[in-house]
């Protein structure tokens, strides 16, 4: 239907947009190997020196370790609570069901600054001192949603008669979960977990409101960027942060695709868009 000119124009525009999306990421990855400590372009000399410096940097190390611990705990909480809520919302009709699903999506629909500020005044109000655990609570509010979204999307495409059949055959609740429900849900849960990890690992705005003196990795980057110091180390950290967030997401995409449960086209996009709602919290 489209004329040849239209096709070529669209192909060229698409290529330009993809380049626009990727060139900055490639450039910032290259800066990790910059021999000079000045951030100029083009890069004139190359080195692996800053990787060694970054590895020995005590602040970067403790920030990385804190971020990993938080992300792991948050992923655990998000998976347990998100799966429970998803099972209830997908399986049962009850009073206030729509309200529940609306409530759970609230943390990603509202700007992150609102969530952050609300939690901050809540902790002040309740007299809870900020610590690693307040960051965990902050991240959990929106990471639960991503686990919930993934699992609820999968449950909607699963027939409830599977569970009835399992119970007719004499399985108890645990057996039904272990041998019937879990095989169906596992990839959605794993994908939700990977996305929740990536999300928590990368979060800045809510963290700035719920952290005290603790530096997560994004806070470490932000503090250094604001003061314009330590940039070669930040470059290396940035390189790893991109790798550590892109790899789980690429894995999650793979896991979801390989099951064949996700149909191509509309369903895949729905799931992707649902997943995509979250990261900017």
């Amino acid at each position, binding site marked *: 239907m489209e004329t040849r000119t239209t096709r070529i124009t669209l192909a060229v525009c698409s290529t330009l947009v993809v380049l626009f999306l990727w060139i900055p990421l490639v450039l910032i990855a290259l800066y990790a190997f910059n021999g000079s400590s000045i951030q100029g372009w083009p890069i004139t000399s190359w080195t692996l020196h800053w990787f060694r410096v970054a590895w020995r940097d005590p602040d970067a190390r403790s920030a990385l370790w804190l971020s990993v611990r938080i992300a792991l705990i948050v992923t655990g909480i998000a998976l347990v609570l998100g799966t429970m809520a998803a099972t209830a919302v997908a399986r049962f009709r009850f009073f206030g069901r729509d309200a529940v699903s609306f409530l759970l999506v609230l943390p990603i629909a509202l700007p992150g600054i609102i969530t952050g500020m609300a939690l901050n005044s809540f902790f002040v109000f309740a007299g809870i001192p900020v610590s690693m655990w307040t960051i965990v609570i902050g991240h959990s509010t929106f990471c639960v949603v991503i686990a919930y979204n993934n699992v609820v999307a999968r449950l909607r495409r699963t027939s409830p008669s599977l569970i009835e059949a399992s119970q007719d055959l004499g399985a*108890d609740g645990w057996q039904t979960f272990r041998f019937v429900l879990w095989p169906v849900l596992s990839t959605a849960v794993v994908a939700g977990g990977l996305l929740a990890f990536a999300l928590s690992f990368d979060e800045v705005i809510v963290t700035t409101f719920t952290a005290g003196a603790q530096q997560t990795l994004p806070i470490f980057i932000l503090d250094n960027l604001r003061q314009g110091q330590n940039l070669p180390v930040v470059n290396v950290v940035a390189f790893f942060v991109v790798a550590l967030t892109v790899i789980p997401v690429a894995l999650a995409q793979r896991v979801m695709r390989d099951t064949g449960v996700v149909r191509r086209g509309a369903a895949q996009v729905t799931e992707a868009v649902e997943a995509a709602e979250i990261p900017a919290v």
Partner: protein
Amino acid sequence: MAVDAGALAAGPPGRRARLRLSGLLWRRPWLKALGLLTPPLGAFVIVYVGALAVLFVSSFWTVNSFTAEIEHTWTLANYRQIFSSGQPYLHIAALTLEIAAAVTFTDAVLAFPLAYFMARLAGRKTRALLFVMALLPLWSSYLVRIYAWQTILSHDGAINWALNGLGLPDQNLAYTNWAMWIVFSYVWLPFMILPVYAALERIPDSYLEASADLGARGFRTFRSVILPLALPGVVAGSIFTFSLTLGDYITPLLVGGPSSQFIGNVVYDFVGINANVPFAAAFATIPMLIMGAYLLIARRLGAFEAL
């Protein structure tokens, strides 16, 4: 049946109890729903909804300027201060809105050709590749992507290098509103591509054939068939680009200039440096109200079905 019951009764006591529990939960589904929902919802309502409620209530309180203690007396003073003409707050809100609108428009224009190409022209392999190419930047660190642009826009960065290579003079884009516009458009672009793609993909080929059969040329088909059908997708994407820009304070902090304050920056400063949470809460209700109105309009335009 009797045999089954006997066999069950003969099982280990733990299993018998579990089966009785399963049966009970099956007969009374609300009990199961309650059990499943209480932990997540309980935690959620206490922490999150409670926090939002505290925040909203506190916007009607004030801070005593001598003791820096919050005074729990009801007043509209914070709101009056925001709307009074001598204060910069309305100007800041206007700048935030302008940039959010400009970013939304830019992203719609950039996303459309790529989404169209993915949905209607690309083969299956190319489409899958483009899909991943559009999705991955979204997930790679938001902070790092802003930092990348800080470097690119800086005085001796890649932009000026490219301009010089073309024989053009340096542009001082860093730390301006232009820089914020570019960076926001970049950071939120994938949020626009995905829903527009989803909307375009759902248009049946037969519609376009019908349009052509009725004598419409390419542009007419685009304007009268494709655009109206893609609109819900664009509006769905704009919810993200608009709301995320409205609530951001990191980008103005890192690439904005001295006069590039956003609502978010003011809010952040009032929570942190100025220790005046009530005023911050009052100012934060502005983006909340704007987003509320925006969501209502978006729903009327069918954006929620396009998600």
